[in-house]
């Protein structure tokens, strides 16, 4: 695949407006919209301690799309995911997932340390009301999907960081989610492991036609994985740019195409951070 400068297309108009219009790249061939944020703002605290975390975010994610959200610290990336997951309510605006199930993954695996890897996955199935008789088989199948077949009896602390994060992925998949929200899921892993997990995530998403909203501060990761990369500004969090990357099969993280996209993302982010140089 080749990504030339022309193919990296920052939208001409205000990105918020283009996403709102609904005619942008968000409307993929699948047609459906998995996630729709309309003019979402989130304010924390009141009075003098008031903090505008998100400011009029409008974003549509099509079914099966992989959208990376990137931005400096304090841009409200995690707040955004919490809103989509329904763990928090927006101060104004609407979050619509059209009844789709949403799974959430964090930077830490957040596995229950008193359960084995298998039981961690199984509990998610149980919470979904999957009958006991089929749970065992589904657990095995999910662990195999993240290439951890045979590790079901291990406890989280007996696994490496990358393996734990894969168990967390299996658990998120067990929630039978159509939309996977990932909050810097590979941020705490070493580059080698992260690289392999990118391949795995890509494979799993394709196999299961998952819609992914992936938060990261790693531009290469965004360029490697995303169909679309959304740049957020900091304090308040606003969409400042969107890049649509052509989906042309597997990209390597060390390929010139990814490097090129990463470089232009970095430039744009630096420009944005420069605004805060007061």
């Amino acid at each position, binding site marked *: 695949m080749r990504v030339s400068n022309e193919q990296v297309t920052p939208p001409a108009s205000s990105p918020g407006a283009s996403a709102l219009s609904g005619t942008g790249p968000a409307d993929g061939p699948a047609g459906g919209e998995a996630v729709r944020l309309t003019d979402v703002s989130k304010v924390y605290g009141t009075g003098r301690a008031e903090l505008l975390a998100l400011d009029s975010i409008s974003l549509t994610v099509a079914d099966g799309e992989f959208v990376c959200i990137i931005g400096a610290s304090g841009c409200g990336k995690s707040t955004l995911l919490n809103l989509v997951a329904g763990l928090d309510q927006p101060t104004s605006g609407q979050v619509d997932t059209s009844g789709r199930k949403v799974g959430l993954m964090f930077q830490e695996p957040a596995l*229950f340390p008193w359960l084995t890897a298998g039981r961690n996955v199984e509990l998610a199935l149980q919470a979904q009301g999957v009958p006991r008789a089929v749970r065992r088989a589904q657990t095995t199948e999910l662990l195999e999907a993240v290439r951890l077949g045979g590790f079901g009896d291990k406890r989280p602390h007996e696994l490496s960081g990358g393996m734990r994060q894969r168990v967390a992925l299996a658990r998120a998949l067990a929630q039978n989610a159509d939309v996977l929200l990932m909050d810097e899921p590979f941020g705490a892993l070493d580059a080698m492991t992260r690289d392999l997990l990118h391949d795995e995530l890509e494979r799993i998403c394709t196999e299961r036609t998952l819609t992914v909203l992936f938060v990261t501060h790693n531009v290469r990761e965004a360029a490697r994985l995303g169909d679309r990369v959304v740049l957020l500004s900091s304090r308040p969090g606003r969409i400042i740019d969107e890049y649509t990357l052509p989906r042309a099969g597997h990209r390597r993280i060390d390929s010139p195409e990814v490097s090129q996209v990463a470089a232009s993302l970095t430039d744009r982010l630096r420009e944005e951070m420069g605004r805060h140089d007061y």
Partner: protein
Amino acid sequence: MTTNQALRGLDNLELRSPQGGPEHARLARKAWAVAWPKLAAIVLVLAVWELITLTGWKKLVLKGPGPVFSDLWHQMHHGMLWATIGWTLRSAVTGYFVALIIGSLVGLLVARIPPLRAAVGSIITGLQTMPSVAWAPFAIVLFGENSSAILFVVIMGAAPSIANGLITGVDYTPPLLLRAGKTMGLHGFALYRYLILPASLPAYVAGMKQGWAFAWRSLMAAELFIAIIGQVSLGQQLDADMSVQDFAGVSSVIIVILVIGIIVDTIFTKADLALRRRRGLLDPAAAS
């Protein structure tokens, strides 16, 4: 598939390899490592005790290890020692289990219901610091001089610690796990059953351990204070030996009380260790 192979290779590299060495030799070394400091401590205590006796300090009251252990031996084979221990342990176990039930229920309710917490949270902490033998006169008025009065004192000693342990555990459930549990679809009873209670278990066990310590000391105080006709107990034995100035007997009862306390405490410590090991909370380098 190359990704698969690479991933498996990486997994194998990152997992700790099992330690070698023959099993029985390893076990023997481990047993010795655990046993020798305890043996050394016992020998040291006996030696100091014997030395003090040899100096003749308070020699009417202070008997040496020799007379005391021969008294203990005699009690074990000819006296009422086992019956006495039996009665006392029965009170301890009954009182402790009632305290466990009451403490757990109160703890759970207080942890769950904020207004209740505001109302009784500090009272529980207050009760925990209060020496429960202070309840003894009140218990006698309430129940008379019988085993109910003793149980009351034991329960008042143990239940606050158990309740507080559970409350602490619920409070300290990691917020990240709560978020994970909620996205997973756990709520209401299931959230408690599968997340909050298991997460609270270490603090709960710590509370149970402390509760036992309080129960045991409350029981001893209560038995000294409350005499029940027709029933022997370690506290009453201590009182009786004291009144006939049988100081070897007094010493041997003290040893029995100490040993029972240590044995039960060891059980709790083992449970706590097993729990922490299962959750990977033990430093593998420190835990031999």
